[in-house]
């Protein structure tokens, strides 16, 4: 599905023609990420992060499959096998650092991708399904990253697994049997490590499948753009290849430079030193924290320190943490403004930047020790997070007077020049 003026796949090579008649896979690729996909001509660099996320997924798949060839998924040898990769396997240190930091960079680009969508209203009709599938990918990523962090079987791995599965223990009555069932024991052990490894290997392929659905759903209406104005004619679009393959290629180069800087000059910068201590069920690290990309959610989890209507604080925290993500699934129906882009929504824009600050504060508090003043700050920040989506956004959509929209993408790019008018 594409615009009627999109370029058609016409194989000249007889072999490609023969293939196309029997299995139109080259045609499919051409229409998906080649010249056959017509894209708005005004995409800015925030639109690079979808392709960068895809690249990060491939990076994790390739390095992960290789690491699995050297890793031993057994509580007795897991830690040592990771050290074996670091010291003995040829280039193993590079592959492991590439994988561990690759996870962090995957989350960086995905978070930027998500906030891009939030600012430019990419979740609005007709792209709700793109947004929903994106959230499914995000949830799968979180599960995969958590289980991957357990595999080195260091102190943070072990206690992270204990605390996170302990979240399910907060569910009344069935909580503890569920926790035991998830772990295959009464505390994280060999059974838990093995099943986490199995799922950590499986889920990235599930992510890849949902990514295909995500792109499929995107290509029904086509990409959104910074003005949020619909494509009106051929003058509004350019072919994906070579225009955006080139632009994404440039972005990829910048991404790789930053990634390589961290990979080679600060490979442990984003990790926790305690994970280089073998797992010890008898002694807790003084300060259990998840990886940085979970900090905002961890802050919401810990913000609940008081019981409410007979619901224990621990359960409230767990519910709030899950709700903070599940809430995003109804976002397309909370923001009722017909204007998509934040560029033309002066009031929305101010609250968007406030939300950015709020999530940054939550992230900071999630990484800090659970003591005052961080607990109170995360309580306020968590309350604001929910208020933004449930109260502020619906009200802003109602009362805001948006700025005048350009008549077309071309007009937004070229202004009111005669050439633009002539092109229309």
């Amino acid at each position: 599905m594409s615009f009627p003026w999109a370029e058609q796949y016409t194989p000249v090579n007889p072999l490609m023609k023969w293939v196309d008649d029997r299995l139109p896979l080259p045609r499919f690729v051409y229409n998906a990420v080649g010249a056959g996909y017509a894209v708005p001509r005004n995409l800015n660099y925030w639109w690079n992060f979808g392709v960068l996320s895809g690249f990060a997924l491939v990076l994790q798949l390739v390095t992960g499959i290789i690491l699995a060839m050297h890793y031993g998924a057994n509580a007795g040898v897991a830690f040592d096998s990771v050290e074996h990769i670091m010291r003995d396997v040829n280039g193993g240190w590079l592959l492991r650092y590439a994988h561990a930091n690759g996870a962090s960079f995957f989350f960086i680009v995905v978070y930027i991708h998500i906030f891009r969508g939030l600012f430019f209203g990419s979740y609005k009709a007709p792209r709700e399904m793109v947004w929903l599938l994106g959230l499914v990918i995000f949830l799968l990523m979180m599960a995969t990253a958590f289980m991957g962090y357990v595999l080195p079987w260091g102190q943070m791995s072990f206690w992270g697994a204990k605390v996170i599965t302990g979240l399910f223990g907060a569910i009344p009555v069935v909580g503890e049997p569920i926790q035991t069932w998830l772990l295959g024991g009464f505390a994280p052990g060999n059974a838990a490590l093995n099943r986490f490894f199995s799922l950590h290997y499986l889920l990235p392929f599930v992510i890849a499948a949902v990514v295909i659905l995500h792109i499929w759903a995107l290509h029904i209406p086509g990409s959104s753009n910074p003005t949020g104005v619909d494509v009106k004619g051929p003058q509004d679009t350019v072919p994906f290849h070579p225009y955006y393959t080139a632009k994404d290629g440039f972005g990829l180069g910048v991404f790789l430079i930053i990634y390589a800087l961290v990979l080679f000059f600060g490979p442990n910068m984003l990790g926790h030193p305690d994970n280089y201590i073998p797992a010890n069920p008898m002694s807790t690290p003084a300060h259990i924290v998840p990886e940085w990309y979970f900090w905002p959610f961890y802050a919401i989890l810990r913000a609940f320190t008081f019981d409410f209507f007979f619901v224990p604080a621990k359960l409230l925290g767990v519910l709030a943490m899950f709700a903070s993500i599940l809430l995003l699934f109804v976002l397309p129906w909370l923001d009722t403004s017909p204007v998509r882009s934040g560029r033309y929504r002066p009031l929305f824009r101010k609250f968007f930047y406030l939300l950015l600050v709020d999530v940054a504060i939550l992230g900071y508090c999630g990484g800090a020790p659970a003591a005052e003043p961080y607990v109170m700050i995360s309580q306020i920040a968590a309350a604001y997070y929910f208020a933004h989506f449930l109260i502020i956004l619906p009200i802003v959509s109602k009362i805001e007077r948006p700025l005048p929209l350009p008549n077309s993408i071309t007009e937004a790019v070229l202004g009111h020049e005669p050439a633009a008018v002539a092109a229309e």
Partner: protein
Amino acid sequence: MATVETSETAVSAAEGEGVRRRDFINVAAVAFAGVGAVAVLPTLINQMNPSADVLAAATTEVDLSAIKPGQAIKAVFRSQPLFVRQLTPKEIAEADARPVASLRDPQSLEERTQPGKKQWLVTMGVCTHLGCVPLGAGEGEVRGEFGGYFCPCHGSSYDTAARIIKGPAPKNLEVPEYKFTSDTAILVG
């Protein structure tokens, strides 16, 4: 598919029949496959529960003879720390002096120990907040301002009966099921 079914329905309606033989075969076949799919579910789910070797290690015997009053040891029960403490008369008096109703998780020392064995306090060494191992069982470890256990993670303080007094933990340290096999030995689990 839809058109086929519509036409079949139309035909059967025209003939005034109720359930036809083909409808029956359809329902029976799908139901049979469904029952088969459901039948394998328990196995697929139950394989994730603790295996026999994990369950076999689900009880722990602890010898109490070497623990003097005021001393505590750390044992392992279900791969988690277990604290066994012999309370001194002073510690028992302190625990009894605290009004039960004032506690976050109201329990008396009697309820947390075996009848006639009030000096033997057996608890899990797992903080009820987020599962850290509290300090206080080892020689020279900090025992917090209430003389019991102290969790260094988020500052939960437990009293001499291992009841939560201060900090974020919602419950007292859990007392596992155990029984005295002799005067100087217990079987936990």
